[in-house]
């Protein structure tokens, strides 16, 4: 079966696109799938750092697109999971080095070799974003439970619909249960009320994520990490499994509301 192309994007920077890409990639590959993670953030690459593969880079995405190397030469094998691969972004170029058409062609070339192609999109709504979504079969929007991130996610969902790549699915990242319970943070239901799209994961704030990223060893590799477990659940949902949502926020009332919205498929 040819690979599915999943683009992870957000609009706003710093909400966890790269972390999500690395962790979902690790989770899918741990389950035995053949996965390639592609860093589309040309000029500001860091997926390689989060995955701990920085020192293995010889060729990058722009080298492939411009024909300086074969696709196979730019594929970096992960050091822990044999089925996990990375195509790093170029650091010395910018977004205009690649066009949406190049990305579609590259994805088509990789499809027969893999089960999943995960594309880490840059922040913003310009060329880099359009490069990242051009080949996508599925678009995942990452947002945080804060008003400005949700506003940008809303904008991105509109653009994804305009590119006829919708409906996008939502990852709500860095939820702090105690703040939600105090009413100081948007609850999942509040975010879904505005965005009205299908939820695919709720990831709790978890210090292990930062530590893991710094060590180049994504949290999904750590069986005890709460966030890692949330990312593994997202991977299972991508595979079509029905995985119940963990009660990240606590409190029956909220969770009841959330579950109701999920059943409605986000159609508010």
């Amino acid at each position, binding site marked *: 079966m040819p690979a599915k192309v999943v683009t992870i994007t957000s609009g706003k920077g710093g909400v966890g696109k790269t972390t999500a890409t690395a962790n979902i990639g690790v989770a899918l590959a741990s389950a035995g799938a053949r996965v390639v993670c592609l860093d589309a953030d040309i000029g500001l690459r860091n997926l390689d750092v989060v995955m701990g593969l920085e020192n293995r880079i010889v060729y990058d995405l722009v080298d492939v697109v411009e024909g300086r190397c074969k696709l196979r030469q730019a594929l970096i094998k992960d050091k822990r999971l044999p089925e996990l691969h990375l195509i790093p972004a170029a650091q010395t170029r910018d977004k205009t080095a690649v*066009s*949406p*058409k190049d990305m579609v062609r590259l994805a088509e070339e990789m499809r027969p070799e893999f089960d999943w192609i995960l594309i880490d999109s840059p922040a913003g*709504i310009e*060329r880099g974003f359009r490069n990242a979504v051009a080949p996508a079969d599925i678009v995942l929007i990452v947002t945080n439970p804060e008003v400005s991130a949700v*506003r*940008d996610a*809303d*904008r991105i*969902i*509109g*653009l994804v*619909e*305009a*590119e*006829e790549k919708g409906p996008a699915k939502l990852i709500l990242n860095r939820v702090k249960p105690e703040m939600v319970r105090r009413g100081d943070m948007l609850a999942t239901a509040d975010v879904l009320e*505005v965005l*009205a799209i299908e939820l695919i994961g709720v990831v709790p704030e978890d210090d292990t994520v930062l530590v893991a990223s710094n060590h180049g060893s994504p949290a999904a590799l750590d069986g005890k990490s709460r966030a890692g477990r949330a990312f593994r659940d997202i991977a299972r949902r991508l595979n079509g499994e029905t995985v119940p949502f963990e009660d990240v926020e606590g409190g029956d009332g909220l969770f009841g509301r959330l579950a109701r919205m999920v059943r409605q498929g986000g159609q*508010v």
Partner: protein
Amino acid sequence: MTGPLPIKGVRDGLLVTLPDGAWHDVRATLLATIDARGDFFRGARLALRMDDRALGAAELGSLRDLLAERDTALWAVLSSLPSTRAAAADLGLQTTLTSSSSSEDDEGLPESEEEFPQAVFLQRTLRSGQSVRHPGHVVVLGDVNPGAEIVAGGHVLVWGRLRGVVHAGAAGDANATVAALDLAPTQLRIAGYIAVSPQKRGTVRPEVALIRDGHLVAEPWEGDARR
């Protein structure tokens, strides 16, 4: 399809009027015109006037990409068809030649001698960054999220939550109204009047905003509120 297309310099870029005919041929003519003029179009912002041609977001998007390859930015699409304008707006393109924040002069709205349907109907969520401009009435079955914008010459009716910026009677009609099941816009304008939503949010009920005795007020929406 012969000869180059008419090109006009306007304040913010170049305006090209597209002829009738099959889209494929028209597009080829446009690209040939650009290629033939070399540097003239390099780095230019292009507005296309296409009257009542029906184009979707996919066609406009691929045209934008083809123009981008020629270092030309597609900036605005001028069409008399609301569906084409909506597709252009979804791609972040302008649909008028004025700047997007038309507050004082509303020359962006076509004069009344132009033909347009009395109302547009949209059944979807209007999201941040999306903008609907129509010289007649605007009816939305869905939510209008913060960051979205509706500018109408006539009434605005939202069967859902209204959280974005809305301007009814934009050409000066102070009899225009704005009605919504949940009326909490970031900013509400009717003709030259302007208001922001009050902070208090008790039980949500349908409301209609209108000009009464020189003031912009919101009242419970009870069907006959205008009279």
